[in-house]
């Protein structure tokens, strides 16, 4: 059954209108960044700046420690993802290949851990980190972010390992590989796309955190993450929306890029464990 030209036109109109409305806030963020500050205090607003102010990006790099914030966010994300991946690769492989006593319950507990409210966990973590002197250090959020990431990565990786035929390890072991050797030399190399997608998903989770950074790092300005830094700009007495928007674009960019590359893998991350 072929669509009539009218149906096709209506479909295109609906798709374009819907996308335009839903993506408009992102467009408006970009336009705000590129507008002159006094242009933003005019009504009616201009939907296209007469002279795009590209210099704003240079300006915020000079006036704000934005590079430091982005670097701290990256450091926290890389640290948390590294720890989570090491732990999750091993655990995911075990859950996928071995029948270990208590393994099932551990897997279920890890899944349920996704339900924990950060506002609940942040209180005891604060007490623990305060006792051992980690408040204000990068380790506090690296460990806190690991609590967000591990439940996702473990199940994503278990699901990925489940799709790899066991015959691969069998063959390797018949050739004299140890079981651990089979994991590191055979399974991990063929899982590279799955590992990359999982790690990037963990990166997004860490990059998006605000609650833990706000709680543990507020008094350690040199360790502020990007999300924490931007909220201090928003809280200033006179908000300079143009500068804030420019900084926001830089902070959102890594995640947007990951999204564009990762869209096909996303569903795996969002649904990890749901078919259990």
């Amino acid at each position, binding site marked *: 059954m072929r669509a009539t030209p009218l149906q096709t036109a209506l479909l295109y109109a609906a798709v374009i209108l819907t996308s335009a409305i839903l993506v408009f806030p992102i467009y408006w963020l970009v336009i705000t960044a590129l507008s002159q500050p006094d242009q933003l205090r005019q009504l009616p607003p201009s939907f296209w700046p007469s002279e795009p102010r590209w210099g704003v990006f240079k300006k915020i790099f000079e006036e704000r420690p934005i590079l430091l914030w982005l670097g701290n966010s990256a450091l926290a994300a890389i640290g948390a993802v590294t720890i989570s991946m090491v732990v999750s690769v091993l655990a995911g492989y075990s859950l996928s*290949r071995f029948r270990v006593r208590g393994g099932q319950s551990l897997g279920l507990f890890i899944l349920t851990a996704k*339900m924990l409210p950060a506002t609940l966990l942040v209180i005891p973590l604060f007490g623990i980190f305060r006792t051992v002197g980690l408040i204000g250090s990068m380790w506090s959020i690296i460990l806190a972010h690991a609590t967000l990431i591990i439940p996702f990565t473990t199940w994503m990786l278990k699901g990925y390992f489940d799709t790899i035929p066991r015959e691969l390890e069998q063959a390797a072991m018949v050739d004299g590989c140890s079981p651990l050797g089979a994991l590191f030399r055979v399974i991990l190399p063929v899982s590279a796309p799955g590992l990359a997608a999982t790690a990037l998903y963990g990166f997004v989770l860490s990059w998006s955190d605000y609650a833990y950074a706000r709680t543990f790092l507020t008094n350690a300005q040199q360790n502020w993450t990007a999300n924490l830094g931007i909220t201090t700009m928003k809280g200033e007495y006179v908000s300079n929306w143009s500068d804030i928007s420019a900084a926001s674009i830089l902070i959102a960019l890594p995640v947007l890029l990951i999204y564009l590359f990762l869209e096909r893998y996303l569903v795996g991350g*969002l649904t990890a464990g749901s078919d259990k």
Partner: protein
Amino acid sequence: MAGKRLLDLARPSRQHWLGYLLLLPAVLLIGAIIVYPLFVSVDLSFQNVGIARLDLPRRPFTTDNYARLFASPDFWNACWVTLKLVVVVTTACFLLGLGTALLVNNRFRGRAIARLFVAMPWAVPEVIAVVIFAWLFDSSFGLFNWLLIKLGLIDQTIAWFSEPGPAFAAVATTMIWKGYPFVSIMTLAGLQSIPEDYYAAARVDGANAWQRLTNITLPSLMPVLGVTIVLVMLWIFRDFSIIYVLTGGGPLKATQTLSIMTYEQAFSFFKMGYASAIGIITLVICIIAAKLLMGRAPESL
């Protein structure tokens, strides 16, 4: 030589020391940063604690925190705000997500790009979404006030963040924009798994588009949508950054959910025992709600 002790992975019943060894790092780390803190927070909720320190002696056991909590109008207000937000945002995310997914699931040129676009807010960090909407809802030069006046819906500008009703609307709008793409993505994944034959057969039987939607598409999507709705509700229930950065729970606690109240009690008023009690109650509500809605153990999450 290794023949006799070869690990047979084809037999999943096989118990092997390696299986335990591989789980060990996860068990230790999760024990240290999730299980132990959880235990501490239950413990804190039964003590009269200001700022938590674990090297000080434990305070005496008391159920005061819970007693005070259930007697506090703020707690019931937070429950009510949370419930309103969950109902409003979940419904809107569901309709918008389902609608956009069905729309871009049609066959047309540029479909891949359209799919990227409709789910794009997923990729905007929550704090950045707040920046965007704080500016859109700005009381003097925000676009929304200008648009609403232009459309003749309001006579004078609304101070979105100084009045309870408008502040709630602003928070809900931001959360809907940030939350609906998850429903789109999940629905699109669910749509892939419906066999094309079903539709072909329905067409042969003369079913129109509406009948195909209500008799094939929606019933086939039900399992996916069920899980998705629960996940969206849990997200709203636990969300901290959107509300905290946008309104801080105000004005007049109009946007103070249980999560915001927990955080405020712990880190603005430094009543960590009391705050832990609210957090534990929040978690219990989450688990019960998830169980009720899924009709089975929370393992599907």
